[in-house]
């Protein structure tokens, strides 16, 4: 249902105000000290521009770092359990990158594949994604290797592409997008053939490998212990890559108790942690870091495509920018993909 129109950048304020009046919370990239973070902008000029990517992803909007699943209280033999109501504020996520918009499909595949996750579904249902195409990239970007692109519409309700300093090309892609545009229809003018200029402004993100092809034969590298060991030698086993990743969705469920009452929490977890697979018996099926690294690559580039039909990586490059020891996922996967030839 793609419809293209022109939106003046100067009218963003009016559009955001209309969203506010409609009861939408707006989250957008905002500069805070030396970083760009997702927050509610107090004015449209607060929305950051000229950055390649935010250090943290926007996944917390639908999958926060921790969720309170239930509260419990014991009174002698009586145990009282209370389920917190699911709060899903209507939210417009404005100004994310196309790779981030695409990441929601991967999260959805994980959180709905068997019994749909009530928290995720409620938040996703109340989320509108208005993304902005990339006119620049850096050495960590590889969206074009995993089926995305700097102007990809995948996962967006509306995609804005800056045609010049004054105008965006607005592609309204879904019903949610139509609803968002309908909040201020007077701001959208006919595109009059301007859609043809979209490609010209997009960043050139080199293709480093073909994820679809790679998924076919990556399983054959499973036993190449030497390769996994060599790649992961410098990995410190922290969770920085997983926690900034827009598609990493593993969590850990823990009870926090003070005397006779407490809460059950689900918190972000990472396959890079030694504890991730540690059994109660003390046995750890992934007992060395190289096996954890292999799991990370296999899960994203083989298991998820095979089982869920989605790519486990959108090529945003955040993991590689955040890694304290410069583990570069795009580079590592390219190396693996070249092993086939």
């Amino acid at each position, binding site marked *: 249902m793609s419809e293209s129109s022109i939106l003046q950048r100067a009218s963003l304020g009016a559009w955001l105000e209309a969203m506010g009046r409609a009861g939408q919370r707006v989250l957008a990239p905002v500069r805070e000290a030396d970083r760009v973070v997702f927050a509610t902008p107090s004015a449209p000029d607060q929305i950051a521009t000229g950055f390649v990517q935010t250090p943290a992803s926007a996944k917390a909007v639908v999958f926060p770092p921790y969720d309170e699943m239930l509260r419990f209280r014991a009174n002698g033999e009586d145990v009282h359990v209370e389920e917190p109501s699911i709060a899903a504020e209507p939210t417009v996520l404005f100004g994310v990158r196309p790779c981030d918009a695409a990441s929601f499909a991967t999260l959805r595949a994980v959180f709905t594949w068997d019994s749909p996750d009530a928290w995720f579904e409620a938040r996703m249902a109340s989320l509108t994604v208005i993304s902005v195409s990339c006119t620049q990239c850096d050495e*960590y970007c590889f969206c074009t290797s995993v089926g995305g692109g700097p102007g990809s519409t995948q996962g967006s309700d509306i995609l804005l592409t800056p045609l010049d300093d004054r105008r965006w090309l607005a592609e309204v892609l879904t019903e949610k997008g139509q609803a968002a545009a309908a909040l201020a229809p007077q701001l959208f003018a006919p595109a009059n053939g301007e859609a043809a200029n979209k490609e010209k402004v997009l960043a050139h993100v080199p293709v480093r490998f073909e994820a679809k092809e790679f998924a076919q034969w990556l399983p054959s590298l499973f036993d190449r212990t030497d390769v996994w060991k060599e790649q992961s030698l410098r990995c410190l086993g922290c969770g920085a890559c997983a926690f900034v990743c827009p598609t990493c969705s593993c969590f850990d469920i823990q009870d926090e108790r003070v005397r006779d009452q407490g809460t059950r929490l689900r918190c972000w977890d990472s396959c890079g942690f030694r504890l991730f697979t540690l059994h109660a018996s003390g046995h750890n099926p992934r007992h060395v870091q190289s096996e954890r690294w292999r799991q990370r690559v296999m899960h994203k580039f083989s298991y998820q495509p095979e089982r869920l039909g989605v790519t486990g990586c959108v090529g945003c490059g955040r993991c590689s920018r*955040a890694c304290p020891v410069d583990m570069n996922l795009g580079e590592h996967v390219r190396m693996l993909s070249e092993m086939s030839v």
Partner: protein
Amino acid sequence: MELLRDKAKSLLTGGAVQVVIGYAAGSATDRFRPHFARSADDADRLIFGEGCRQNLAVYLLKPEVRAMGKAAVVGGPTTLRTLLQYAVENQIADGLVVALALEDGRVEELTSFAAVEEYLAQRPHGLSDGDRAELEQHAARSQKDRWAYWSAELARCIRCYACRAACPLCYCEQCITENNQPQWVPVASDAFGNLEWNVVRAMHLAGRCVNCGSCAAACPENIRIDLLNQVLAQEAMTQFGAEAGYSVRKEYALSVFKPDDKETFIR
């Protein structure tokens, strides 16, 4: 650079060590990555420059690296101090590691803890002028301001534990945050849990931290957690005269019992 590569090559080809842990070029011009040179060819990729700040001593305790044999580690004063602190804490035996100390383009090979001690003895101790000025600036603020600063900073912590992983002295096989029977540290990355985690970590490093800054450099949220460690290092110095990593004989403050301890509760 050539001096470093030549030194690494001679150590490797002569069989003195099986691996040289140094730095190689990274993903971008301003990034460097740890490099494990195991052959003369590997050694040609070693580089050293302004941005090579990660404390590579962290790798010396990793089973994968230990399995390679004897290691040489490239670094500056804080890396050397880590070696001596490892010695104090019985983590590495003397003679099992070679330090390649870099200073102004020169490379010095230090093959024993005594040599490392001597090398460090000839160099300035304590905080750099810049670090000291920064700490004083923080200390000069009111308690309320400092509380507000740390509350806001630590609220950003995502509990990825990159600080712990990058820290050469955070080598516990099982960290206290990984215990849940009982649960000592709240797991949620909320203001309280984050404060507790970061304070526990800072306290555990009090008198042990060598101020390499790897924790803050690793933090994806750019939180200056190293400042907490620096304050506690100063405190340990004032209270117990303990400055970590300058002597293999130094007892570190939090693990020593003395019958004449100045605190009455412990006697």
